């Protein structure tokens, strides 16, 4: 497994959101605008790289029985630093993201990569794996954030791109896009799209309606 593989494969082939279905909660919560999605993506990617590196560095000294506690402690320390940094230098953004930066601690993706990769790989591949997964997460977040902000408000990054009906233009914003369900729909469509492009990702159904399938006209 080359470093390039660790970096590239989580982008589409093994994407943390669309294939592993991890980190969905924040993907729903912070994607109402593109700017919050970008900030969240950067914060999570940094946490993933740092925690991967630190945990990998300590991996021979972590007793297996308490490894989860140690991993969480490390992740939490990094997240607290990032949260404080954001409150100090980008207060407005920190207020808009509210609790979700702090909640990176509980993001399944961070612990998932620590447990599945950093615990059994050297430092450099672990950092690259964190970066790759962070970028894969960011890719999806940016797509969802851009779609939701554009369709919901008619602008991107707070800059209006088309004039809305309220301001005398033609564009009618879709109110639903600013509500949480739309993130589910967009994520669902993205998962669908990826699985059309990569049919090997399709899961086998647990049940089949045998009789009904046969009888369909």
């Amino acid at each position, binding site marked *: 497994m080359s470093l390039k593989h660790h970096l590239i494969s989580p982008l589409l082939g093994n994407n943390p959101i669309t294939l592993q279905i991890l980190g969905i909660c924040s993907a729903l919560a912070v994607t109402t605008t593109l700017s919050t999605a970008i900030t969240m993506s950067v914060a999570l990617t940094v946490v993933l790289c740092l925690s991967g590196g630190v945990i990998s560095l300590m991996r021979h000294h972590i007793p297996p029985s308490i490894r989860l506690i140690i991993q969480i402690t490390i992740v939490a320390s990094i997240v607290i630093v990032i949260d404080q940094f954001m409150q100090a230098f980008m207060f407005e953004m920190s207020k808009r993201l509210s609790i979700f930066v702090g909640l990176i601690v509980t993001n399944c993706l961070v612990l998932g990569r620590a447990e599945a990769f950093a615990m059994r790989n050297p430092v450099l591949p672990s950092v690259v794996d964190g970066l790759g997964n962070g970028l894969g997460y960011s890719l999806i977040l940016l797509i969802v954030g851009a779609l939701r902000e554009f369709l919901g408000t008619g602008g991107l990054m707070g800059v209006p791109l088309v004039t809305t009906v309220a301001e005398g233009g033609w564009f*009618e914003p*879709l*109110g*639903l*896009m600013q*509500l949480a369900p739309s993130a589910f*729909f967009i994520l669902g469509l993205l998962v669908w799209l990826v699985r059309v492009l990569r049919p090997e990702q399709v899961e086998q159904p647990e049940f089949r*309606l045998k*009789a*009904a399938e046969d*009888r*369909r*006209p």
Partner: protein
Amino acid sequence: MTGRLLDSHLMQQRRGWTPARVTLAQSIALAGPVGVSLAERGAVQIAVLMTALVACLAWELAFDLIRGRSPSLHTVTAALIFAILVPATVPLWQIALAASFGVVFGELVFGGRGYGIVSAAAAAAGFLVFSFTGASLSVTSEAVALATLPGAVLLLWGGLISWRVLASVAAVLMAVELARQGLSGLPMVLTTAVFGLVFLVADPVASASTQWGRWVYGLLAGLLIMLFDTLAGSAIGPAALVFASLLASLFAPLIDHLTVAVIVRRRGRVHG
């Protein structure tokens, strides 16, 4: 209808239902309300109806082609129900968008009519209300309510809607309305609710399909309708019916599951 309802051999043998016949029966039942709404609103309603029909059928045809099935017309019922729920003041492109959303996410992504869990018409109406500021649903008139009745009888006779669901919802609505305003409000509540009850709440795909579960489902739907109405602070509204039907139908599989579990346990005690 093909999935949950027509899956039982018994059903098919006893009533001779096929998916196409179910769609046909529902369309016949809807002919009355559709005709009355056309007469009431005039030419504008024709445009609404055509938009909804074209949007729904185009998506169904696309999905039939992708999935290698022969072309079908099952989304006609969703389009007809939706066209009666939307007021003619809504722009046509919004109607097309909402109808597309409803049939794709309420029905086609699950595998077609009968495989989903909610009523596609209710999903479309919910999308319309949530998405566009100022968009509201139209209150069905007394004439539409009257025209619903023959269709309701037809569907009841064919076993396509359950009298248990209708009786249960109606009982809750009447009880709450009696407690709230007394006898005077009763006729109004029933006339505004009857179309939504027959074609949204009692939809055979969306509602519970065990006998006891249907009573529980109706109870839940009735309470939700009254809750949403009270929150909105108005008389019984079409939006309350739509959202109550959507929410109740999400619980229908759970209600059925629990009903079956209870029956199995009781039988185990008797025979075990």
